[in-house]
């Protein structure tokens, strides 16, 4: 069976940084999966996602969440980014897990992604499930994860490519 789930690139921060960029993404896969295990240098780093360095108001997202013991929903339109999480993790010792699936990223239609964010903190925490849209018909060749605060050293981001055949 051919390999259909391949690592494209992985980054582990050796020191704190506010941005991780994965660029020169080949257009040879069907879908992408980004596995992001992260901690903030300070609380609530609020990680965001952009494609192809586009900071225009071309993003929107809708989500379902539990922020502690409160369930809620949210819709954000004409945004300059897709929030990976509205909270990140409020711990500097417990990592959060965000899994981002990006579908048909090399096609000529607008791009959708599914974000699965997990930050349990032993008695509090956040769980967020989000669908995002980037209204652009170009192939995605770069992903940028950033925050107004730094991600802690040891934070990892791995991008996988998935082939349908």
């Amino acid at each position, binding site marked *: 069976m051919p*390999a259909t789930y391949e690592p494209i690139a992985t980054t582990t921060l050796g020191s704190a940084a506010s941005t991780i960029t994965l660029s020169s993404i080949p257009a040879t896969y069907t879908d992408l999966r980004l*596995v992001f295990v992260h901690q903030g240098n300070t609380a609530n780093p609020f990680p965001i996602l952009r494609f192809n360095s586009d900071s225009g108001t071309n993003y929107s997202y809708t989500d379902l969440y539990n922020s502690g013991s409160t369930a809620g929903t949210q819709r954000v339109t004409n945004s300059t980014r897709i929030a990976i999480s509205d909270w990140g993790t409020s711990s500097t010792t417990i990592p959060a897990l965000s*899994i981002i699936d990006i579908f048909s990223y090399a096609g000529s239609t607008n791009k959708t992604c599914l974000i699965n964010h997990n930050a349990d903190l032993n*008695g509090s925490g956040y769980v967020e499930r989000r669908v995002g849209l980037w209204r652009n018909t170009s192939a995605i060749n770069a992903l940028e994860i950033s925050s107004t605060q730094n991600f802690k050293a040891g934070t990892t981001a791995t991008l996988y490519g998935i082939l349908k055949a």
Partner: protein
Amino acid sequence: MANTYTLIASNTLGASAASVTFSAIPATYTDLVLRISARSDNANLYSTFKITYNADTGTNYSETRLYVQDTGTISSATQGSRSNNTARYETGASATSNTFSSFELFLPNYAGTANKPISHFGVSENNSTDAGISTYATLYRGSSAISSIELGNFLGNFVSGSSFFLYGIKNS
């Protein structure tokens, strides 16, 4: 390029069992994925099973939950200092026959020394009342590599035909 999504072990039950354990999990992967198709013989429409790592029954587990049962409102809860993690909605003996629930757990950096955040999805559909969807952020505060995973029912057994697949993913 090598395939990096590899089956480590699987178990399809030929007879009912109260629990299933994956042991001697090698530390050579980056992440683990556990995919489950399960049904309980407990006489309810749905049930819940527990997940224990490295046979650790200390209060080192916690979870933040989102779930909805049938057409009800979305529920949420947060539980700290548990002695296991949980998974719902497992299809029960009173549900439509030959119907099994589905689960997926994603465990990143399972071989590391840091606290381990884990993603969980569980669904049960019944063509009747009491279908359910759950999605949890869970945490295991163990500093050792995860080398075993035990899945056990709180009530009853996994029925014959329940299946459990453990995959390893490498990032290089």
